[in-house]
């Protein structure tokens, strides 16, 4: 048995703990249950001690980390319910189904809480564009995300797509769902009521995805493709029916608690429900609806068949509930009951096949304080230290038409981003904006991370990921409220990887604290490593903000000729770890730009005030690529050119145009208003100046020929279709 345990991912020490806990050798089914529960994916055994640092409280937080999704109050008795989750390992092995079931899983996490999903986002990290697998993975992942979200009818409104050789053999697929619920009708998973029925609903159970959670908790080697049978197959049609049936049942008082069957299927759902409620649970496994014959207890408990839920119902509510699931043509089976024993008892044909104490399985799961070493700091790189190899105009066109900044239209046009008819800001802006149905208010949503900063300095990179999300929400006029995170890292058994993890967590926690932007849900994906090489540290942040009045929302598009473009925030010429340095100078050295969180807060609050006061006609935050890229993006969005003011003489021009100094925004306004904004900013100690004037059909004012919007647009829109071998 100890040998089998090793094959299932349990260490020798963990196996001994298990034997001690149950007082005997486990049965095969018990071993399967325990190994899944103690997998990194389900137990967070390497990350738990660090994650406690995250601030998780605020007056508007209804439910922090620990449930299927986080919940925040958004006024009018409503709540936003959201979470982000990774599906990295399966998406590399089988991109379409891996990505599709990632979307399906996160949707279930949100509607399990009683919310109707209203938006999906995703953060995708692929290998180098010219890596032989990249095209195949991009095409499959994008089609899979679209295939699931489009079919179920939840708009996919935003996200990010990154190409970097650091992900060649370990792509990242992070999916986020945001839902809307009544604040007083949130459903949770803790089981209660001795004797109450345990009900299985949704799709039937098959042999797919057995031990998927264990697969996702190990590094890859050259035989990764052999793990394909551990990837689940998604059925968005069934999930749509399950969504409607669950929401219909949730409108009654039949449900005591509910939990979706995600990673580790019936194992984790039954163990989590019972252990959270401090009760026991008994399941009769032959009552589980199955689509294959001859499945044994082990397979039933470890199957990761999708689109299934486990519920504890009020006694006597079974018939009412069954009628709803019959209406939607879904399986409904009473498969067990809640007990007072504190044990998980599984029976097949009346015979007990597993009898485990629940506490060690869930709460007493192993927790590791893995050794770590801090990432060595890098030297700061000043603009003067770097000679620009090309002129600023050429650098701009190359950046805008390059892998990192080129338009992602090819991606988002494959996602239905308009279904539900509440998408107020479509993909392509700073944040997606989705109206709260039937109101003039909206949620702003974004997903952000800058892995090259995290690699250079995990603390600064972690803080910047949170600040960038906060800034993107601010730039559309929203009040940022809370985040979810998806912590994607390499092998935690390597001290340098644990050092990256620790640094990112500390930086994120500091930024969340300073910006009053708590973490309410999240997910950790470790072992993103192949043949000993780990991915860059990638703590993806999903941010949610609230726009109280849609009449005061900002977009990035230049609006009218003659308006000054005002830069808010200081530009010191920080070029270390910038996009310009990497893409134009082929260097990746230097410390990332410093981030002063008090400055971030002050600048952001100032800009939000301008938007809410309806004083600006457009707004855009500055991030990858810096000032000139930000201006070019506003010009393309508005189809209006700009006459640039000369760069200041105390900086090399590349330091002015391409530095990635933080906490900066661009706004446009009428000339009189712009003057007033600059004066007001200066009064408050916020640097502000005019950097150009909107007008014409080109960017003028750089050395060399004007850059026509047409040529810029061709470069910007052409890159992705060319990558994918299309000519349109």
């Amino acid at each position, binding site marked *: 048995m100890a040998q089998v345990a090793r094959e299932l991912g349990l260490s020798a020490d963990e196996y001994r703990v298990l034997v001690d806990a149950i007082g005997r050798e486990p049965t095969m089914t018990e071993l399967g249950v325990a190994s899944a529960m103690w997998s990194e994916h389900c137990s967070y055994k390497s990350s738990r001690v660090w994650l406690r640092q995250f601030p998780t409280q605020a007056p508007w937080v209804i439910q922090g980390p620990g449930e299927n999704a986080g919940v925040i109050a958004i006024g009018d008795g409503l709540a936003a319910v959201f979470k982000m989750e990774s599906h990295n390992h399966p998406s590399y092995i089988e991109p379409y189904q891996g990505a599709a079931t990632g979307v399906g899983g996160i949707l279930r996490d949100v509607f399990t809480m009683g919310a109707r999903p209203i938006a999906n986002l995703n953060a995708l990290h692929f290998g180098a564009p010219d890596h032989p697998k990249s095209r195949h993975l991009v095409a499959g992942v994008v089609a899979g995300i679209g295939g699931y979200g489009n079919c179920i*009818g939840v708009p996919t409104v935003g996200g990010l797509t990154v190409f970097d050789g650091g992900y060649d053999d370990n792509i990242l697929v992070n999916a986020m769902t945001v839902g809307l619920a009544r604040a007083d009708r949130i459903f949770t998973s803790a089981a209660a009521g001795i004797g109450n029925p345990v009900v299985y609903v949704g799709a039937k159970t098959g042999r797919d995805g057995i031990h998927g959670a264990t697969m996702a908790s190990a590094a890859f080697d050259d035989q990764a493709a052999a793990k394909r049978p551990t990837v689940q197959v998604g059925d968005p049609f069934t999930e749509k029916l399950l969504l409607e049936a669950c929401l219909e049942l949730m409108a009654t008082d039949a449900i005591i608690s509910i939990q979706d069957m995600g990673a580790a299927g019936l194992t984790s759902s039954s163990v989590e429900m019972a252990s959270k409620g401090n009760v026991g649970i008994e399941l009769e496994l032959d009552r589980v609806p199955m689509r294959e014959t001859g499945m044994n207890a082990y397979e039933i408990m470890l199957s990761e068949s999708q689109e299934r839920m486990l519920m504890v119902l009020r006694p006597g509510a079974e018939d009412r509930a069954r009628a709803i699931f019959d209406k939607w043509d879904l399986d409904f089976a009473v498969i067990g009951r809640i007990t007072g024993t504190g044990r998980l008892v599984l029976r097949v044909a009346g015979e007990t096949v597993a009898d485990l104490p629940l506490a060690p399985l869930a709460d007493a799961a192993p927790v590791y304080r893995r050794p770590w070493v801090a990432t060595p700091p890098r030297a700061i790189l000043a603009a003067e230290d770097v000679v620009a190899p090309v002129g600023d105009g050429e650098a701009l066109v190359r950046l805008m038409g390059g892998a990192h900044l080129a338009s992602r239209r090819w991606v988002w046009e494959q996602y*239905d981003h*308009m279904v539900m*008819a509440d998408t107020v800001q479509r993909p392509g802006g700073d944040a997606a904006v989705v109206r709260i149905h039937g109101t003039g208010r909206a949620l702003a949503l974004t997903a952000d991370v800058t892995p090259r900063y995290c690699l250079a300095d995990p603390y600064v990179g972690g803080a910047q990921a949170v600040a960038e999300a906060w800034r993107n929400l601010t730039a559309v006029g929203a009040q940022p409220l809370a985040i979810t995170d998806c912590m994607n890292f390499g092998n935690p058994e390597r001290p340098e990887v644990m050092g990256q993890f620790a640094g990112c967590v500390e930086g994120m926690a500091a930024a969340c604290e300073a910006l009053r932007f708590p973490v309410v849900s999240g997910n950790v994906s470790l072992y993103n490593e192949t043949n000993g090489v780990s991915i860059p540290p990638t703590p993806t942040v999903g941010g949610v903000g609230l726009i109280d009045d849609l009449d005061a929302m900002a977009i990035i598009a230049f609006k009218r000729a003659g308006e000054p473009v005002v830069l808010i925030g200081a530009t010191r010429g920080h070029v270390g770890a910038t996009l310009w340095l990497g893409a134009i100078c082929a260097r990746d050295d230097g410390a990332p730009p410093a981030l002063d969180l008090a400055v971030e807060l002050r600048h952001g609050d100032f800009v939000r005030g301008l938007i809410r006061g309806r004083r600006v006609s457009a707004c855009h935050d500055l991030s990858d690529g810096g000032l000139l890229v930000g201006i070019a993006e506003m010009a393309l969005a508005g189809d209006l050119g700009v006459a640039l003011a000369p760069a200041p003489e105390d900086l090399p021009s590349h330091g002015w145009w391409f530095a990635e100094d933080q906490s900066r925004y661009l706004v446009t306004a009428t000339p009189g208003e712009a003057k007033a904004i600059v004066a007001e900013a200066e009064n408050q100690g916020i640097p502000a100046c005019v950097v150009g004037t909107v007008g014409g059909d080109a960017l003028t004012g750089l050395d060399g020929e004007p850059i026509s919007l047409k040529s810029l647009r061709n470069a910007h829109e052409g890159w992705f279709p060319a990558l994918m071998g299309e000519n349109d």
Partner: protein
Amino acid sequence: MKAGVVVFPDSNCDRDVMVALRAASGGEPVVLWHKESSVPPLDLIVLPGGFSYGDYLRPGAMAAHSPIMRAVKERATAGTPVLAICNGFQVACEAGLLPGALLRNASLKYVCRDVHLRVEQSQTVFTARYAQGQVVRIPVGHHDGNYVADAATLDRLEGEGRVAFRYVTPEGEPTAGANPNGSARNIAGVFNETRTVLGLMPHPERLADIRLGGTDGRAMFESLVEALA
């Protein structure tokens, strides 16, 4: 106007079209559940967008055989107007309410974006608020919108003024570049012989509200309310 909106398993634009009908003062629409075999007296029946039965087998194929469709076909034959949007258009073709079929997009990819349409026939209950030849901007969102029919059918549709909309450039030209899915003759929507059934791939309900970035879709619902109120 009393409108009914059919809900198949995995219809997902049913709510959106009800919002647009309500906003155009089309009153409160009723839901027509796919398992029902009769339809109450109605002025308009809508087959909404979505992925009925997951689009498994073939888009619209299974929904066309659901109990409600027998009743819908009877009403359509008797002259009740039917508006079939996107998946509804696919269902209507599969059910024989409209000629032709919708194949996978020429790009083989799902496509969601605004397109420009030229109004080819404004003399109907659906399009009276549009001017003949007017160019409007309305989104598409589909994987299978590539309209096909044999040449004789296409000629007859054109000859009888039964092409409702064509994909065009913003200037009104039906070019290949303006066609999002490879549709024959850039056809975006067609009528039945009596012009009382309209099937179209674009979603007028998605741009019927200025907050969403345009209102060109609203005129279709206003046309219906005006004609059928």
